[in-house]
Structure formats: C-alpha cells, structure tokens
C-alpha cells in the first residue's frame, strides 16, 4: 500500500469512529482511495513529495467539489453535486493533499453553534452536550478529535476562529481576498473568506501557502502570488502588541480573561511590548454585521429557486408560487430570518437608515483598525466572550447567538487577518486567544502566532 493509500485508510477508519459527532455530511472509503491515487499521481509527476503530500483535509460543505455533493447543510441543495471544483480544493490537490470528507455546518454558514444544520447538530468532541461553535463546527470538531490534521472552513463573521477556540484548535482567517472564493458558496461576498483549522499554526501556514495566491476567477482575489510563511519569530524585541480595551470588558469570563493574560505574558517574555489601544466602534460591529451580511445574503441566496438545480417544491400554481414554496420549505428558520432581514434593510424606504448606515459604520470599524495599527504592530484579544456553551442554550434568542461573535466579526468587517490559538482551559473547557494583523500581513501574523503557541500549554488550566 502506498503512503497516500495508508493515510486514506487511516482517515476512513477515524471518520468511522467519530461518526457520533455528526461532523461529516459526505465521505466514502472509495473516494478517499481515489484521492490517494490522485495524490500519488501528483507526486509521480513532480518527482518528489508535494508540500501537503498525503495530508487528509476535511472540507466544509459550502465549498464545492465535483466528486461529492455540496449541500451547505440545507434541504434546498439536497442531492446537488457541483459540476466544478473550488480553486482552494484544486490547489490542495495540486499540493498532494487528499480531500477526506465534506463537513457539517450551520445551514449556508449562518450560525455560531452548528445547531442550524438541516442534517442535525454537530457535537463538541469532548463535551457532547455542548456546541463546537459555528458555523464551521464540523471541520473544527474533526481537527479537535484528531481525525484530520487540517480542515477548510469559511468565515463571514468569525465562523472559524470561534469554533477553533471552542474546540481547542488553531483557526486562521486570512486577509479578505487572500484565498480565492471561487467555489465557496457565497453567504456575504464582501466578508466571506475561506479559512483554515489545524492542530498547529505551522500546519495552518502550510495550507495557506498551498491555497493562497491570485485567482483570475475571483475579481476580489488579491493580485499577489501565494504567501510564503517563515519560521516562528524568535525574538519579539521592538514589536508592539496592542490590547484593545473594548475587547476586555469588566464582565469578561474570568477564564477567557486569564487566557489573554497568559498570552500577553508569553509575548512579553519574547521581548514584545504590550500597550493598551482603543477600537472605539467595536460595540457596533455585531449590529453592523447583522445588516451587511443578511443584505448580501438576501441576494446571494436568490439563486436557490428550484429552476436550474436543487430542491423544487411540489406546489401548485404559477412560477411565483413555485418559488415561494420551494424557498419557504427548502430554507431553515435561521436562513429565512436572515433573508427577511436582508430584504428588509435593502427595501425601498429603509436602505438609507439601515444598509447605507451600516456601510458608514463598517468604514469606521475598518478605520479603527487602521489607526490602531498605526500605533502597534499586532493586536491580542480574546476570541470568544465565553468557552463553548451548551446545545440549545441560545437557539431561542437569535441576538444572544449573534453576540457569541462579538470579538471575531470586527476582523471580517475590516478584512484584516486574524488567528485564534489555543490558550489553555477554563474549568476544563478550551479557551482561545486571537492575534490580529494589518491587512495583507498574513505571513507575519502566522510567524508571530507560532511564537505564542510555542510558549503556551494548551492543556493547562488558566485560572
């Protein structure tokens, strides 16, 4: 058996054993073996091991692949298989990686707990009554459970960093436009970013090197070649790290607060200088996000109409009735809520008060980052206000669920890169801290994160 075939077989076994997490939507041992063959062919063509040779990668099921279905965890796409493959997946394969499975998510990536999946919730790999975070909960759970070393997720408002923190793994959101969105099913186009889960920051860097770089099929893709990440920073002498006061409110969970303090200690011990900074519009980030993202989503999800692909309702009547029935029954409650909100804020008479206003505030939030990065090189902040919450805890109040993203969604609004690294445990539950860098400083950010990671024991209690 080739080494790729062995990796594929091991992955199949691990996927089998982790079935109880409900983290996957599609995979099969046969497809895994086919992927392994392809990886071997890539190696043979290259004459040496490609960068990610035989590395199994789980892929969130809102990233399209020809081989497996793509459902976005929605009934409206049940049975849909894309006739083209996402650029990021093509690039993973070109680097010798093997696609392990498609992972469960909140329907169309709308949620923070992976409870809003038409195919059932994903369980936290260590605490089954808790959520793994979301919306990329399936990918997070598989990396945390050790089934795969790395996974692709997607962020619109923190959907990788937040579950990474909940599950105790690394979650990296690159700069907006760093990784092609071609083949990522759009939720909110101006925010969406294919993002990476991994056990270690080094692995995240290896995946980024493989999937980044300009793609002519995505007009928002940065006109730059693939990123090259260097080794961990050894000395941080002369490096200034900002602690944004708005991210450290008095009522912050004490475990989370302690994790940030520990990370600050590690940074200081490497020679960095820590200073307080202010991002004054932070508190408007979640309301801004919940106007901008639903507005874009209301248009992005209009294509799911039962005409060309996907689910079609058995409705009687004209074509308008067919649309309404197909979409009404095809979308879950949270997706419908967001489509309604997005349609409302764009509709005649409300556009200025909501959509235009949110664009104004979004610019202010981006300007906050710009001015903070005039004073410091990087920012250190908690990833989430609390560790993983219990399943069902926030499903009745959409706004309570939205607030789980309060510290993560500003980076999406500003387009800057951010990485959450495990920072220890609070009462046994994993806690993460995030580091943020100026726009396009993805490589530098990961080099810093490797240094922080090296200085922290992710299993130790922080309190």
């Amino acid at each position, binding site marked *: 058996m080739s080494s790729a075939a062995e990796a594929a077989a091991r992955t199949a076994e691990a996927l089998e054993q982790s079935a109880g997490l409900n983290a996957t939507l599609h995979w099969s041992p046969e497809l895994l073996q086919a992927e392994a063959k392809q990886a071997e062919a890539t190696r043979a063509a290259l004459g040496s091991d490609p960068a990610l040779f035989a590395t199994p990668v789980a892929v969130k099921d809102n990233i399209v692949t020809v081989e497996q279905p793509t459902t976005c965890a929605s009934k409206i796409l049940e049975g849909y298989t894309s006739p083209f493959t996402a650029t990021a997946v093509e690039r993973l394969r070109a680097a010798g990686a093997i696609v392990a499975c498609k992972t469960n998510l909140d329907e169309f990536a709308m949620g923070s707990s992976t409870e809003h999946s038409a195919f059932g919730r994903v369980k936290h790999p260590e605490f089954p009554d808790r959520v793994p975070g979301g919306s990329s909960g399936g990918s997070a759970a598989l990396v945390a459970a050790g089934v795969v070393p790395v996974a692709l997720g997607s962020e619109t408002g923190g959907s990788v960093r937040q579950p990474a923190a909940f599950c105790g793994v690394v979650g990296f959101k690159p700069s907006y436009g760093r990784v092609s969105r071609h083949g990522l099913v759009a939720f909110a186009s101006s925010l969406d970013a294919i993002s990476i889960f991994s056990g270690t920051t080094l692995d995240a860097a290896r995946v980024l090197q493989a999937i980044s770089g300009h793609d002519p099929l995505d007009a928002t893709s940065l006109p730059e070649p693939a990123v090259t990440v260097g080794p961990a920073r050894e000395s941080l002498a002369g490096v200034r790290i900002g602690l944004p006061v708005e991210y450290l409110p008095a009522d912050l969970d004490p475990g989370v607060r302690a994790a940030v303090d520990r990370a600050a200690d590690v940074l200081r011990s490497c020679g960095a200088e820590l200073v307080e900074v202010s991002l004054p519009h932070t508190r408007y980030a979640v*309301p801004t996000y919940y106007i901008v993202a639903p507005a874009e989503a209301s248009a992005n999800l209009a294509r799911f109409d039962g*005409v*060309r692909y996907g689910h079609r309702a058995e409705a009687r009547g004209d074509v308008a009735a*067919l649309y309404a029935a197909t979409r009404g029954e095809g979308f879950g409650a949270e997706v419908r809520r967001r489509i*309604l909100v997005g349609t409302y804020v764009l509709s005649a008479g409300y556009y200025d008060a909501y959509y235009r206003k949110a664009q104004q505030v979004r610019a202010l939030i981006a300007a906050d980052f710009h001015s903070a990065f005039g004073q410091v090189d990087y920012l250190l902040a908690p990833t989430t206000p609390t560790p993983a919450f219990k399943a069902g805890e926030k499903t009745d109040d959409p706004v309570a669920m939205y607030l789980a993203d309060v510290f993560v969604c500003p980076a999406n609004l500003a387009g800057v890169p951010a990485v959450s690294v495990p920072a220890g445990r609070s009462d046994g539950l994993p806690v993460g801290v995030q580091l943020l860098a100026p726009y396009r400083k993805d490589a530098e950010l990961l080099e810093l994160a490797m240094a922080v990671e090296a200085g922290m024991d992710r299993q130790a209690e922080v309190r």
Partner: protein
Amino acid sequence: MGERMSIKAEDVIRVARLAALDIGEQELPAVVRQLDRIMGYVEQLSEVPADQKADAAVVGPASVALREDVVAPVPLAHPPEAMAPGFIAGFFTVPVRNTLEES
C-alpha cells in the same frame, strides 16, 4: 431612525413576497417577533453620528481586474440536465399557470 416603528405582520408579508419566501400562517407571529427583536438590536447604529466618516468600507483590490474577451468558459463536469428539476428538449422548464410538471 430614532423612534423605530416596530415590525408588524404586514412588514413581514411585504418582505417575504419580495424575497419569494412562503411564511406559514402559524409561524408568522414568531417570525414577526424575531424580526422585531433583530431590528430592535441593530437599531443602535443610529447612535453613530452621520457626519463621522471614513474611507471606503470594503477592503480588497481597489480596482476590479478585467478578463480579456476570449471564449473560455469554466467547463461543466456534468450538463445542466443532470442538475435541473425540470428539463425538456434542451430547455429548463417551469410551470406557466396552474400546472406543474409531473416528475
């Protein structure tokens, strides 16, 4: 914004029609309540003075990159008829009046 009008059933019905979404009669009150809660929450943006301005909100390339005019579509691994719920003689089909295709 200031004194926000609360979301009413007719607002939800109007928006649902624009969005081509059936909302069942029984679920309407809950949807109205949730939308009212969300719109009430995002309302706080009105606190930000209108004269506070910053440059363009969206990051990414400053200018759109154009493609040259050549025929080079992304190929389809399987044809439209393999995906379509209704497809006859090369056409996607949808109902006209009170008819639905027999599937």
